[in-house]
C-alpha cells in the first residue's frame, strides 16, 4: 500500500497511489487531488469515474493512423476530402490536435505513440512503425512529413524513420525549425538560432513576390 500516506485510510492511500502514477503528478499533488475528491459532491465524483470508464470502454486506436478514436476509423481518416498522398507523422495524439489547430495541413496523420528514447528503454519496436510501413506499401503516399518534437529524441526518431523509408522512394520531409513568432532573438539558444539561419528564407515583398526560400510545399494548406 501507499508509502506516500502511511497514516491515511486504505481507500484514501489507494487513490493517492493511483493519482501518483499519472504523468506529472507528484506526491503532494496526488494528496491534494485525493482530498479534493473526498470533499466533492457524490454526483460529481461519479461523473468523473464514469468519464474515466467511458474513455477506457469506448476509445480505441484508429486502424489506419493509430490516433485515438471512437471507432476503428477516426474522423480524419474517414474524411474523403483530405489529401491521401501526404502523411504527417506525430509522436502523440495531442500533436494531431496541435497541427489541426494551425489549419495548415489537410493531409493524413500517423501517430507513433512515443519517441525513440534509448535511455528509457524505448526503441523503434515500441513505436507504431510497422503500421506506417503497411500504409506506405500501396504507393498512394508520396510525401511523409515528420513532425516529431524538435529535441534530440525527436530528431533521432525522425532520422530513424528517414532511414526506414529510404528504400521506398517516398519523399521524406521534416517540419522547419527556427525562431518562434514574437520571441526575442537575444534569448534564443544557439541551436535554434543556427537552425533558423540555415533555414533562412528570402524576405517576401509587400505584393507577395520575391523569393523562393522557405522551402515549404505550398499545397499543404489547401
Amino acid at each position, binding site marked *: 500500500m501507499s508509502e506516500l500516506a502511511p497514516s491515511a485510510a486504505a481507500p484514501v492511500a489507494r487513490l493517492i497511489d493511483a493519482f501518483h502514477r499519472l504523468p506529472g503528478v507528484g506526491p503532494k499533488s496526488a494528496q491534494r487531488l485525493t482530498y479534493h475528491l473526498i470533499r466533492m459532491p457524490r454526483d460529481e465524483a461519479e461523473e468523473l469515474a464514469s468519464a474515466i470508464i467511458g474513455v477506457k470502454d469506448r476509445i480505441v486506436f484508429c486502424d489506419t493512423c493509430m490516433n485515438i478514436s471512437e471507432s476503428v476509423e477516426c474522423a480524419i481518416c474517414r474524411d474523403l476530402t483530405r489529401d491521401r498522398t501526404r502523411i504527417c507523422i506525430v509522436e502523440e495524439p495531442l500533436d494531431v490536435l496541435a497541427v489541426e489547430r494551425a489549419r495548415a495541413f489537410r493531409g493524413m496523420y500517423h501517430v507513433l505513440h512515443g519517441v525513440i528514447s534509448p535511455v528509457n528503454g524505448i526503441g*523503434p519496436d515500441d513505436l507504431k512503425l510497422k503500421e506506417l510501413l503497411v500504409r506506405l506499401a500501396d504507393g498512394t503516399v508520396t510525401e511523409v512529413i515528420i513532425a516529431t518534437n524538435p529535441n534530440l529524441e525527436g530528431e533521432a526518431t525522425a532520422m530513424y524513420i528517414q532511414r526506414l523509408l529510404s528504400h521506398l522512394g517516398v519523399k521524406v520531409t521534416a517540419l522547419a525549425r527556427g525562431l518562434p513568432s514574437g520571441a526575442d532573438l537575444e534569448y534564443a*539558444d544557439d541551436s535554434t538560432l543556427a537552425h533558423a539561419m540555415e533555414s533562412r528564407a528570402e524576405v517576401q515583398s509587400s505584393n507577395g513576390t520575391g523569393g523562393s526560400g522557405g522551402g515549404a510545399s505550398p499545397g499543404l494548406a489547401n
Partner: protein
Amino acid sequence: MVSSRPHTYSVEAVVVRASDFGEADRLVTLLTPFRGLVRAVARGARKPKSRLGGNVDLLRHIKASLAEGRSLHSVSQAESLTSLRGLHSGLEKMSTGLYMAEVAERFSVEGGPNPALFNQFVQMLQVLDEEPVNPLMARWFDMHVLRINGFLPAISDCVDCGSALEPKDHVFSPARGGLVCPECRATENDVLLPASMNTIKLLRHMARSRWDAVRPVDAGEEELRQAGRILREHMQFVLDRHVRSSAFMDEVTRWRPAGANSPSP
C-alpha cells in the same frame, strides 16, 4: 531573520536525462563535476518561447543557474558552453552520445563529485561532435569510465592467481572482473567470455592510451565484438544493471531496422 529566498548556485553540467513533467515543464538530470547528478525542473521548457528550452535538451553542455528546492531544484537560467551541434548530424552520433550519457549517469550519484568522469564525458562528446563515429569510441569510453571509478578489468595478469598470462587466447570472467589463466578457469556457474590474443591486446591498448592513440587502430570485427561483450558484461556486473541504450546503438550501427522488409543500403 531567515531569508525565504531559495539558495541559488551556478554549475557546469551536461543534460543526461530529460522527460516531460507537468503541463509544460521538463524534468532534467544534470551531470555536474562537483555535485554529481542533480535533478531539476526546467519550468516552461517545452513551450516554444521558453528561454530554457533548447539548452535543457539531452546532451547539452551548459552553464546552469539552479535554485534549490525541497525535493527538486529548478533551472532558472541556462546557457550553452559548447555547441556540440555535430552530435545532431547523424543517428550513429546521437545513439553513441546517448549511450555515453547513460553510462556516465549510471556511474554517478546525486551529490557525489566526480570531476574526472565529467571531464572524460565532455571530452568524448566533443570528440563525437567533431569526428566521424568510430566503433572504438564507446568501448574506449567504457574502459576509462571503469578506470576512473576503480573498476578497471584485470587484463594484465590472471585475476585469480595473479600469474602472468601467456601471449595466447584466454577467457574473461565478468564475475571475477578479469582474465583468468587456464589453471584458474574451472569454477562452477561462472560465465566465461572468449578473449583472443588480439582482443586482449586491444583491451590493454585502450586501457593505457589516450583517445588520440586509439583512434587510428583498425580493429577487426571479431576483436571489436569480443572487446565490446567483455566490457559490457563487466560493466553490467559492476552496475548490477544493463545499460539500456546499448541496444539502440547496436541496432543503428548494424542498421537492421524494425519492420523493414529489406535493409537499406
